[in-house]
């Protein structure tokens, strides 16, 4: 550290114009990816858990629920895709809550950038995790004998739809992440919500077998509709109404919870 260098570096400080909303968000996405680069074990939960789910449901319950594992794999794989990716969204809230305990958030919040950029960026980074989780499931499914009727194109569309919905749902958990005190509290509250919603959907069982009121709930559950739409896209017989409901729900969740999260992030002491 010499005085001359110090003065030189101070005298040459640039005066750039502010970055665009997109550029700031992508930069925060880059931050998320750097963290994965430094601690690749972070990807364990998004790869290992889905693998366990696929194996467990196919071989443990497949015979009992659908009569044969092969048949059940056709039904269950799109469902497991939905479930695994949606479970991963809880971690967006957990990691935001962890971030908040660090001093660097104060610096981010004092920067002249588009206010939601740190959040949008973090969720963009998380979407990459969703993509990894989804890809692992599809590849494993194919290895176990799953043959999607609509081929690669259908799978890619289904994956895209699930990730869009997951991105929207993450805003609910980032809101939780800002409201609750500890990462553990966020995790517990998150799973307490997402667990029953996922199991009370058509992800695992055909709702035709259910009693009336339960069937009504399962039919109206957006997660059921997302699972049906994914199945449809992968099989090539999707109903456009399902896609519309999924995208509409995603838009609604984002419209409600993204501004709420941004507001809480800005005002949190």
């Amino acid at each position, binding site marked *: *550290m*010499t*005085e001359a*260098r*110090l*003065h*030189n*570096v*101070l*005298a*040459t*400080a*640039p*005066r*750039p*114009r*502010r*970055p665009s909303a997109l*550029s*700031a968000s992508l*930069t*925060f996405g*880059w*931050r998320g990816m*750097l*963290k994965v680069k*430094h*601690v690749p074990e972070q990807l364990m939960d998004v790869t290992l858990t889905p693998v366990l789910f696929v194996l467990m449901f196919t071989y443990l319950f497949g015979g009992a629920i659908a009569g044969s594992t092969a048949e059940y794999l056709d039904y269950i794989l799109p469902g497991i895709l939905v479930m695994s990716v949606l479970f991963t969204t809880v971690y967006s809230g957990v990691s935001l809550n962890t971030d908040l305990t*660090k*001093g*660097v958030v*104060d*610096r*981010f*919040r*004092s*920067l*002249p*950038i588009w206010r939601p*950029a740190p959040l949008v960026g973090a969720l963009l980074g998380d979407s990459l995790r969703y993509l990894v989780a989804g890809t692992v499931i599809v590849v494993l499914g194919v290895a176990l004998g799953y043959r999607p009727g609509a081929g690669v194109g259908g799978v890619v569309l289904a994956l895209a739809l699930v990730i869009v919905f997951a991105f929207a749902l993450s805003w609910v958990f980032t809101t939780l992440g800002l409201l609750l005190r500890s990462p553990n509290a966020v995790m517990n509250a998150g799973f307490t919500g997402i667990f029953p919603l996922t199991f009370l959907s058509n992800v695992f069982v055909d709702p035709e077998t259910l009693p009336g009121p339960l069937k009504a709930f399962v039919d109206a559950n957006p997660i059921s509709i997302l699972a049906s739409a994914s199945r449809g896209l992968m099989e090539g017989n999707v109903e456009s109404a399902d896609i519309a409901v999924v995208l509409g729900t995603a838009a609604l969740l984002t419209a409600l919870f993204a501004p709420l999260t941004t507001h809480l992030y800005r*005002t949190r*002491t």
Partner: protein
Amino acid sequence: MSFEQPRGLTSMSRTDLAIETSGLVKSFGGTRAVDGVDLAVRAGSVYGVLGPNGAGKTTTIRMLATLLRPDAGSARVLGHDVVAEADEVRGLVSLTGQMASVDEELTGRENLVLLGRLLGLKWRVAKDRAADLLDAFGLADASGRLVKHYSGGMRRRLDIAASIVVTREVMFLDEPTTGLDPRSRNQVWDIVRALAAEGTTILLCTQYLDEADQLADGIAVIDHGRVIAEGTPSQLKASIGSGALHVRLLDPDQRPVAERLLARELSTVHLEPDPAALSAPCADGNRAAEAVAELSRAGVRVASFSLGQPSLDEVFLALTGHPADDQTEEAEIAEEELA
């Protein structure tokens, strides 16, 4: 063209002020963390906010950096209101928080590139700027290491480097040397002096009178969320007595003799809690040397002595009549008693 302004608050016109607060208040539950703070910081100066733990320094800085909304009062940075024009203010200031405001899970270089990008630099420029800063701050060798493996001093330097990736008119430094060893502290001081020489306005929160004295042109002493004294370092020191001779004896039994002799040489003498130690206010090195020599001549065996600045404790005792206790703890105890 600029010309030298006479120092002192009275001669200041409003337009010279980089930071101006009036009646700033912020409460957390029952605690009034900041309780009516008025500050006037001249553009281009280094202003020290001096106070013990829990006095309200960080809360004040967080309001000025637009992170907290004041409950009452107002604050302006270079003429912009921190609430109504928060976005403008963010474009003018940078914050080096008390908790390290760098990302521990990234490398030093990644931190600076990230900040550069977030402040609008192109990739190429952000990378070059990061390299220059790391070099100038003595961090080039550690640039590829994760910040969580940095020492306290390295982390602080990186933190300050992150605050000057682009030009900023006003810098907030919250306790930049707390917990640092003397060498690292001196490095941080050199950086602050260099920044001041470039004309950056710096608001420096500190618990050390020494630090405020070394770096600041003006000081506000803050206690329980209020400014209790204000002025230049020399005014402040003059008002509280500017230094003290600390003497430790080999034999505690000789303390009464030493007390009598020092009282004759230097007037008031404090007996310290340590039965072998005593101190006396004294600003003049020669007079202190005389006094110590007098002890020797009288056969008092001196283990050690030093001539130091008054500590923050002594400043507080002089200004408030109570020592500078840790006010965070005090507030927590009060809360526990309520519960």
